[in-house]
């Protein structure tokens, strides 16, 4: 067994560390992390303004809420537009500054150059007084923000490393000279992107780059919202975790780009009062797969806490409370599940079963679709309830999956407990024999 672990580690560790050090992936993840507080609060505002209380067909229908919303809804939409509505402004600045920092460039100028490039292509200004068309500053601008943000920082890096900045005579005070140094990247970005803008606007009815990129990525986005994609992602995350590597941390940078775009489509439909289009949106995996952390281990933690094996009992006990908040490293490394062939089987299979059931329940509208972001540390069933605009179907689905995952783990836990108890018994006999040589 030791040898197998060593082999797997030799292969996977360099691979994972290569993926984890891809600067672009780190930048996208950092961008999303910077934006997260705004997006979470913004989507809660959207929820509060669209509670299912004003639908006369809903049993929770309430007159006072309906009246309140007719009166004041308009007054409170601005906080939503200034957060979720311009999500890509936060993301664009965040990913630019992160990429710049990784290249050893000044962070804030890198962030602003990225934001500038994004605004140049995604925020056309029209009319007088000038008004910005903000329709692509929300999640729909994700791919554009990423692509032009990388472009902007790469241009900046190229100009700095090639020393192509405006130089002034030595008599000019250094502070002023520096302010001229950052002119060239701005000019270069304009020269690259503005011709693209002009070309696109002259084509037929005129399109925006973000519109074009969304159409281009459409097949990929709709492919992401499928059972196949969910199963693949669940499998990869848990296989990596089984090998002792933080699976979610490694893959969520890419996955998050899609779930955020999908979430945007649902939020737009919610605001417009239409049927929500996407399933794999926002925290779908947190709602139904990560119940107690990767591998849906909350039920397992409880079962371990009442185990007959002293080792499992102590691990189970320290794991329950963090598990409620989806943190389960003690169980993963302590039980252990990592590199444990017995517990590893359900650890990889249970999440795949969970996402399959959740996918079908959601596609048949038994459970609601995700319209809001909640922190990933929110207990699973509560996260499911909140993020789907207080959908009881989602709440019961998450609770049901929690119970199901516990039962799926139990037979494997029993086998493992027996083998551990035999070991513990052998150790006790050995100890007793050492204390009392007469028995031996």
């Amino acid at each position, binding site marked *: 067994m030791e040898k197998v672990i060593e082999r797997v580690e030799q292969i996977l*560790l360099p691979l*994972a*560390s290569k*993926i*984890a*050090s891809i600067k672009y992936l780190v930048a996208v993840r*950092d961008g999303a*992390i910077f934006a997260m507080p705004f997006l979470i609060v913004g989507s809660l505002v959207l929820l509060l303004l669209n509670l299912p209380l004003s639908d006369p067909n809903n049993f929770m229908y309430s007159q006072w809420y309906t009246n309140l919303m007719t009166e004041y809804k308009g007054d409170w939409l601005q906080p939503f537009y200034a957060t979720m509505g311009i999500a890509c402004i936060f993301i664009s600045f965040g990913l630019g500054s992160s990429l710049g*920092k990784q290249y050893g460039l000044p962070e804030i100028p890198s962030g602003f150059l990225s934001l500038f490039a994004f605004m140049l292509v995604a925020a056309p200004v029209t009319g007088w007084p000038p008004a910005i068309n903000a329709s692509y500053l929300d999640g729909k601008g994700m791919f554009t923000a990423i692509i032009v943000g990388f472009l902007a920082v790469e241009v900046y890096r190229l100009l700095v490393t090639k020393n192509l900045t405006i130089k002034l005579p030595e008599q000019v005070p250094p502070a002023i000279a520096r302010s001229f140094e950052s002119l060239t990247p701005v000019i270069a970005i304009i020269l690259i992107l503005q011709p693209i803008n002009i070309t696109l606007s002259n084509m037929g009815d005129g399109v925006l780059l973000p519109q074009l990129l969304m159409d281009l990525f459409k097949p990929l986005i709709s492919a992401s919202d499928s059972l196949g994609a969910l199963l693949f992602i669940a499998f990869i995350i848990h296989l990596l*975790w089984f090998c*002792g*590597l*933080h699976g*979610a*941390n*490694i893959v969520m940078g890419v996955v998050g780009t899609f779930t955020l775009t999908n979430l945007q489509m649902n939020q737009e439909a919610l605001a417009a009062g239409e049927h929500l289009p996407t399933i794999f949106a926002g925290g779908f995996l947190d709602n139904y797969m990560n119940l107690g952390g990767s591998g849906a281990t909350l039920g397992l933690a409880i079962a371990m806490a009442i185990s007959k094996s002293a080792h499992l009992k*102590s*691990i189970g006990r*320290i794991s329950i409370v*963090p598990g409620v908040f989806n*943190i*389960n*490293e*003690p*169980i*993963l*490394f*302590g*039980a*252990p599940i*990592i590199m444990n062939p017995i517990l590893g089987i359900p650890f990889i299979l249970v999440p795949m079963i969970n996402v399959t059931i959740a996918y079908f329940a959601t596609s048949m509208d038994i459970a609601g679709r995700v319209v809001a972001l909640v922190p990933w*540390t929110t207990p699973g069933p509560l996260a499911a309830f909140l993020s789907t605009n207080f959908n009881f179907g989602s709440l019961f689905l998450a609770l049901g999956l929690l119970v199901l995952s516990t039962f799926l783990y139990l037979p494997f836990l029993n086998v493992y407990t027996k083998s551990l108890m035999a070991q513990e018994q052998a150790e006790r006999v050995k100890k007793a024999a050492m204390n009392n040589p007469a028995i031996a």
Partner: protein
Amino acid sequence: MIRIFLCCSAGMSTSMLVKKMEQAAAERNLQVEIAAFSMADFDDAIQKYDVCLLGPQVKFKLADFQAQAAKLNKRVEAIEPMTYGMMKGEVALDQALSLLELA
């Protein structure tokens, strides 16, 4: 004052071990400051702290972080999986201290 920091994906699970290490340090009457950070905060944290222990689940960043720490003449090591899982504060504290003595 010895300053130790632990680092993992979000600094959540390492913060549990921090508590156990603080208890272990208090029992020994050691003057230590121990904190947990996310990987994104590593750059800043390594400037201020003397030594870093890495959660085993983010071991894939070890080589990268060691290279950065070496520039400051500081050391980084990953925590043993079992020590981490059992939340053995004593053992982790010893590991941090041994890194400092060798530095």
